[in-house]
């Protein structure tokens, strides 16, 4: 009884510290995080749908899911490059990273649209 309550308290404390730490992150990173969350959530909803109705137009399913996952991955790359704390990417201007992000997204979505059917 005591041990379980202490673990609960510890997890609560953990969450609190995570939250406060997260609040410190710069705004642009938070925007990117939000974008990633949105993309992943959309992918999950599509998977649930497929689980319900079956994967008949499989290409469409793949297309949809990979579009979400792909854009999420690209957003993560952008976050890495834009984050000032990352020493490896100090020389890369954030605008340049953003331009890469846009370009890669456009290419990804061209392929996705072709595969969508």
């Amino acid at each position, binding site marked *: 009884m005591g041990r379980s309550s202490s673990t609960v308290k510890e997890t609560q404390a953990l969450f609190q510290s995570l939250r406060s730490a997260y609040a410190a992150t710069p705004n642009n990173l938070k925007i990117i995080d939000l974008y990633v*969350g949105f993309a992943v959530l959309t992918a999950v909803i599509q998977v649930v749908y497929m689980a*319900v109705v*079956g994967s008949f137009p499989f290409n469409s399913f793949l297309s949809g899911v990979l579009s979400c996952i792909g854009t999420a991955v690209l957003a993560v790359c952008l976050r890495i490059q834009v984050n000032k704390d990352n020493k490896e990417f100090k020389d890369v201007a954030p605008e340049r990273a953003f*331009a890469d992000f846009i370009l890669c997204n*456009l290419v990804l*979505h061209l392929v996705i649209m072709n595969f969508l059917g």
Partner: protein
Amino acid sequence: MARSLSGFLAPIVAVALICCSFAAAASIFQPISESHRSAAIETFARSYGSLEETYEALQTFDVLGVERKPDVGTAACQSVSQTLASSSSTLKDIFYALKVNGVLKCEVDTDSVEGIVSTLQTAVGSASSLLEFYHSIGGLVLVKNQALKDDLYLADAEGVFRSIKALSQSDGRWRYSSSNPESSTYAAGSALEALAGVISLSSSEIDQSLIGTTKNDILKLFERVEKYDDGAVYFDGEESDAHGNQGPITSTWSVVTGITSFAAVTSGNLNLPGEKILGLAKFFLGVGIPGDAKDFFNQVDSLACLENNRVAIPLILSLPATVNSLTRKDTLKVKVSTVLGSDAPPLKIKLVRAKDTPAIESQELKFDSANKVHVLDTLEKSVDVGNYIFVFEIVFNDPEHKKAYAVESKTEVPIFLTGAVKVGNAKIAVLDSDLGSIETQNLDFAGENLVSLGANHLQKLKLRFQLTTPLGHPFKPHQAILKLTHESKVDHVFVVGNTGKQFEIVLDFLGLVDKFYYLSGKYEIQLTVGDAVMENSFFRVIGHLDLDLPEAPEKAPRPPVQPADAYSRYGPKAEIAHIFRAPEKRPPQELSLAFLGLTVLPLLGFIIGLLRLGVNLKNFPSAAAPAAFAALFHVGIGSVLLLYVFFWLKLDLFTTLKILGFLGVFLLFVGHRTLSHLASTSSKVKSA
């Protein structure tokens, strides 16, 4: 002259088939008949170009006795008068104009005649080539014959004769002129006609030695003759004949007209063998109905010359019908006539023998003067059915006629005698090896009764019958065939063999089990007996046979697939049931729409989150140019996304890529400007 019409044409001979028979020598020729007349009307139906063509048409109609149209005659006469009156007409034109006049007997005024005669006489004197002689002398002869001028004579007949003779060659042919070494048979014919014309126009006797050498030339010419197997004889033209007269019909016509006109004006005979003249007649009759006008004229004109010539008149033996029926009691009729169908002098026809049939004896045919045919009416008593070659001989009542007429010594004619063959003593039986015959049934081919038999594979089927001719002899037909047809249409054919008097066939089913494909059941029995001379050839079903064969072993051959009924090939075919892949089950539309709504939720969540974060547009450049670029940047991205939507909806990849190329370049440029501007402003802020 020799081209005058034959007298009065005999009754028309009915057209019969000319048999190409089994022996090359046995063939018959038919004299000119009604079909020739109708063909002539067709061939010469068009309007005529030159006087030569006009003459050919008119002469042909005249010889055949065909009515010519009156306007043709008037038009031709006009042309004739014009040609004869004109002083610029060529020798050839004058010649043919006079020829046409000879047929039509137009009115020609005396002035034209005088002019013509003087032109021709001058031409004769100055002629150097053969055709000049031919046309000029021919013209003068025509003037004399048509009595257009009296007392017409050649000035130096013997000199002209020698000049023409100088163009001859040693092999009997003539050259067209002294400068050209090529000679032709056609030229020989023309030369002989010209020489005959000279003789008739000369006031005094021509030197007999000259005539004698010409007769030798004729004999030499006849050594060059070509022969067919059936006795026809002709002259083959020369390839090199520059005047285009190379064909055998034209060359032979020329020679025939030449020798008949020459024989008409000379005394004594030409010593030509009668069979050669007969051969020439056979050649022309063998042509049948010629295709073009020139050949037609040549054929008919030659026959008219041969019809009554002074060398030998050919007589043709022909039969109106070569197939005679004993049942109908037909009598064999034989006719002898001239080539144009006129009557022959009184003669007798003897049937000498029939080739390979000693039973038929020599006998004389009776003459039926009403129908002008010779009749053999003893056929049915002495001659049985079959095909024979009868050999006929012609004997003249007056022995003098033998010299004047040319007949074949022995004419061979193929004859078919048909009759009804009696089928008798027909029996069909099923035989058992132990018990002998189980059931024998008599077959009656006249009646409609069908026999019904049963047999198994250990037994035999025996069929026998006899065939008898009307005269009571055994008969062997071409076909005696037995056919057994199963219910499934599989059939088997057997030939019925004969042993002297009887026809017999024994089918041993033990040996035939394999051949019958082990098919048991009802078989239809069909018998076929047939021959060309059998008038009552038959094939009929004589009964049924229930055949019991053992079961087929594993490896037995299957019966061949019977061809489907011919009509079913074109009928509708069987319906094909296509099996499509069953379509996938799709979810109900409401569910899909619900999830579509659900998908939009994260987007809304994203926008709400952005607003909570306090997203603003403060960093949007305010100066004009950068602002424009920034705006264009967003517009560019938006347009690319819009392009993707269209790509999904209706465009194809190539079009999309093309447009994307343009948009991409634009976007790169604009984006570069905007982002570099942003970068520079942020670095300024940092440094400041």
